[in-house]
């Protein structure tokens, strides 16, 4: 049986304009309605911090803290299936610390892996249209939740690749330790390719299926992971050895996971070239559905879904299609909107249990 992860209660201190907020969030759908700058996205940021110890808006912890304050705290009561737990994330002096039931987790990565969360915000829209880097990061996010080692393959590969590059640039192509570093680039490169291959396999079926529901059903979206390096170690190593001179000028290796892509085609044509704006939006939504399904299958837990300002990016029909999927999946959804009047139209689903909040200047009222 697949369990559902949910946040039952949330309390936030000093996250941006949220000075002190405690909310009962024990519902299938939680709506935060308010104008831009009201603090509704900060509530999603707090939820994301609670689950991952990181912000999706700011790379450095200090940026999420209320101006003029030195620390911020997010606490919450989560329910994983039938098992409850308290979680807490503290930001202070540029450092993050996290606790489960007042206990220190083995690592911040282990903390984040325990509470899978999927987020969709306006910044995701270039995912299918923009450069491959966004799609690699997306694959790595899925892999973080679906492989036991989390980001280990990515971290190891990144370190080995950067070390080889630094060596080529500062010590030349005949540095005495170039061979060991190159061997590690290939070893961890292959590990990362395998990790991404698994993530893509877990993701693609559900993505292709979901697309038929968000776009015209006769259109076929196909996804494929496209690595750039050969999948046997010897050829990989030979190619690296032969490209040392070129690589030392290029700033990175000519092959390897840092150049991979998740290729998307629409009826056999590259989506990036032929897709209309509406088709791109449908494809992004389909990928997010794929992410939810991949996490569910790998972990046996339905992730929490955070939707930031989707009503400004999607038309009512697409939104309804997306919500009907979300409700079949029975994931807990938190969403922000500038259009509270949409709540009653059913655009955000016909939730049997829904809590609606109005957010204004960091003050939150149940409506």
């Amino acid at each position, binding site marked *: 049986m697949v369990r559902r992860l949910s946040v039952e209660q949330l309390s936030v201190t000093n996250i941006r304009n949220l000075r002190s907020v405690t909310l009962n969030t024990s519902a299938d759908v939680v709506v935060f309605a308010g104008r831009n700058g009201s603090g509704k996205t900060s509530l999603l940021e707090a939820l994301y911090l609670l689950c991952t110890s990181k912000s999706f808006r700011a790379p450095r912890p200090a940026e999420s803290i209320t101006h003029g304050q030195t620390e911020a705290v997010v606490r919450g009561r989560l329910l994983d299936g039938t098992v409850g737990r308290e979680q807490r994330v503290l930001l202070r002096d540029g450092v993050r610390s996290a606790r489960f039931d007042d206990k220190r987790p*083995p*690592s911040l990565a282990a903390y984040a892996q325990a509470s899978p969360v999927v987020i969709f915000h306006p910044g995701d829209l270039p995912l299918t249209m923009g450069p491959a880097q966004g799609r690699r990061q997306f694959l790595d996010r899925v892999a973080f939740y679906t492989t036991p080692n989390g980001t280990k393959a990515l971290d*190891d590969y990144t*370190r*080995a690749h*950067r*070390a*080889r590059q*630094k*060596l080529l640039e*500062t*010590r030349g192509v005949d*540095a*005495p*330790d170039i*061979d*060991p*570093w190159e*061997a*590690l680039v290939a070893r*961890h490169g292959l590990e990362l390719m395998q990790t991404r291959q698994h993530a893509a396999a877990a993701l693609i079926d559900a993505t292709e299926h979901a697309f038929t529901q968000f776009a015209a059903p006769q259109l076929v979206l196909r996804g494929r992971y496209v690595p750039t390096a050969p999948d046997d170690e010897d050829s990989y190593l030979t190619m690296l050895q032969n490209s040392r001179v070129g690589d030392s000028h290029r700033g990175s290796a000519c092959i390897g996971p840092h150049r991979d892509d998740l290729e998307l085609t629409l009826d056999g044509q590259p989506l990036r070239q032929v897709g209309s704006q509406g088709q791109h939006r449908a494809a992004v939504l389909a990928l997010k559905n794929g992410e939810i399904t991949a996490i569910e299958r790998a972990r046996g837990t339905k992730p929490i879904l955070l939707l930031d300002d989707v009503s400004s990016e999607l038309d009512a029909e697409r939104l309804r299609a997306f919500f009907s999927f979300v409700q079949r999946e029975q994931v807990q959804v938190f969403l922000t909107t500038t259009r509270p009047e949409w709540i009653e139209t059913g655009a955000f689903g016909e939730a049997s249990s829904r809590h609606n909040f109005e957010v204004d200047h960091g003050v939150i009222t149940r409506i």
Partner: protein
Amino acid sequence: MLPDRVRTLIQLLSRLPGVGEKTAQRYVLFMLTTDSDYGAQMGQELIALRENIGHCSLCGNLAERGGSDEPICSICTDHKRDPHLLCVVARVQDLMAIERTGAMRGRYFVLGKLLSPLEGVHPEELPIERLKDRIASQNITEIILATPPSVDGEATALYLRRELAPMGITMSRIASGVPHGGELEYADPITMGRALAGRQRLSR
């Protein structure tokens, strides 16, 4: 507000790993309020520490300085150890972690550093010549490469393996993926013992 001397000591203590300013302040107040011998004894021991403890000239482990002789550690002078087996580690902390398992019959060699082009550490900074001398002069026949299973630790092990290959000794590498994050220091003795027992013989 605080007397200068108190502030200085707080600053000194807060440079210790894992000690912040608040904790340092608690330590100073504790030393001021507890019996007067405690602080004095600690002061004497701290001065004596640098004067009397150095690094073993053979392996790099902590060793007592004895007069004019080069310091030699208690492991290098322990005659019950297998003189032909040498375990190469990155740091003294790693040596201690392996010693806690009680499973290591041989002696050690502490590198002091790991290869890391990103931090500017290159092969010429590793004590390779001293290691080769040790192997040749002490008839070492087997080497265990026990650098941590991190990327830098693995690169260093690969480099040593190639550098030492012409010496015709048996080499093995501790089982990988054992402690999370590659810190041997934090591995419990059972896990560390398993990494040692599960070491892989490396082909020449």
